[in-house]
């Protein structure tokens, strides 16, 4: 039976059980965190690095976690922040023409040995990478993880109405983009 967030929070509050609580927290959430990170940074090696950094940030932040937000949204906020930081830090800068984030990520998609999607999946991922940053985040969380708008709102600090609109527009853009490629 899966441990509840409340039980995890109780364990991490106490010094003697903090490590056990952290371990159970990772057991419960590491896969979901990984896939959230992976869809942002694209390449597996980068996702691995970000997941490590995220785990360390979570460990360091456990004492400060106030339970104002749910454990889940707190973890996701950290993973989103770490992912975006990673992308920013790793953008290559050509002397003449700085590469955009989109270009860097498309290159990573093409080069990633852990991407073996078929033609449709490849087009879909490229279409997602064409989206503005926020629409991409919203789309990934809604389409792939089926998070509720209220949860996404807590994670990103955006109103539910804006999120609904972002998701709808992102979906339309992706469909149009893929149609153009066909």
């Amino acid at each position: 039976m899966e441990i509840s967030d409340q039980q995890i929070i109780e364990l991490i509050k106490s010094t003697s059980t903090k490590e056990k609580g952290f371990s159970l927290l990772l057991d419960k959430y590491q896969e979901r965190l990984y896939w959230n990170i992976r869809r942002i940074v694209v390449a597996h090696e980068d996702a691995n690095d970000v997941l490590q950094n995220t785990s360390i940030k979570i460990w360091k932040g456990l004492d400060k976690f106030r339970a104002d937000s749910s454990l889940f949204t707190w973890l996701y906020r950290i993973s989103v922040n770490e992912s975006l930081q990673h992308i920013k830090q790793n953008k290559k800068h050509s002397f003449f023409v700085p590469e955009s984030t989109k270009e860097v990520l498309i290159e990573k998609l093409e080069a990633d040995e852990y991407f073996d999607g078929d033609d449709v999946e490849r087009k879909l991922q490229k279409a997602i990478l064409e989206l503005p940053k926020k629409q991409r985040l919203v789309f990934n969380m809604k389409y792939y993880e089926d998070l509720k708008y209220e949860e996404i709102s807590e994670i990103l600090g955006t109103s539910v109405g804006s999120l609904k609109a972002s998701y709808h527009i992102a979906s339309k853009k992706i469909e149009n983009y893929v149609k153009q490629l066909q």
Partner: protein
Amino acid sequence: MKLDKQKNKESGFKIPDNYFEEFRLNIPDLIKKKKTISKTNHKTLVYAVAASIVLLMVSTITFLPELTRSNIQSDNYELSDAEYYEINMEDLYYAFNDDTESINTSSDLDNETINYMADDMDLEEIIVLSEK
């Protein structure tokens, strides 16, 4: 192409075999290592700053007569102003260390939020507005 509405949609992304199991095993070592490294860096920095201050003081004392000697001696001559470098060690420490405490998603997200969308707007109204 219509986007698939089913859950657990294939996305083409794969992972190495046993990735999560191995990741879990490595995390305790990773966390302990990070803590040790940051403490070592702190001590090294403090010692380095202290040594620099001592050297600065010694060199100032040694060369002070040279620095203040003047060809024209007057009754009212004053020592040349000395610059005092006030070093706050705590400030230096934090300057060299990343701030690992802040979690602020808003600064990393651009302002493409569609601000004209009110929560209670009908989705169809929103679509019409966005297509203008």
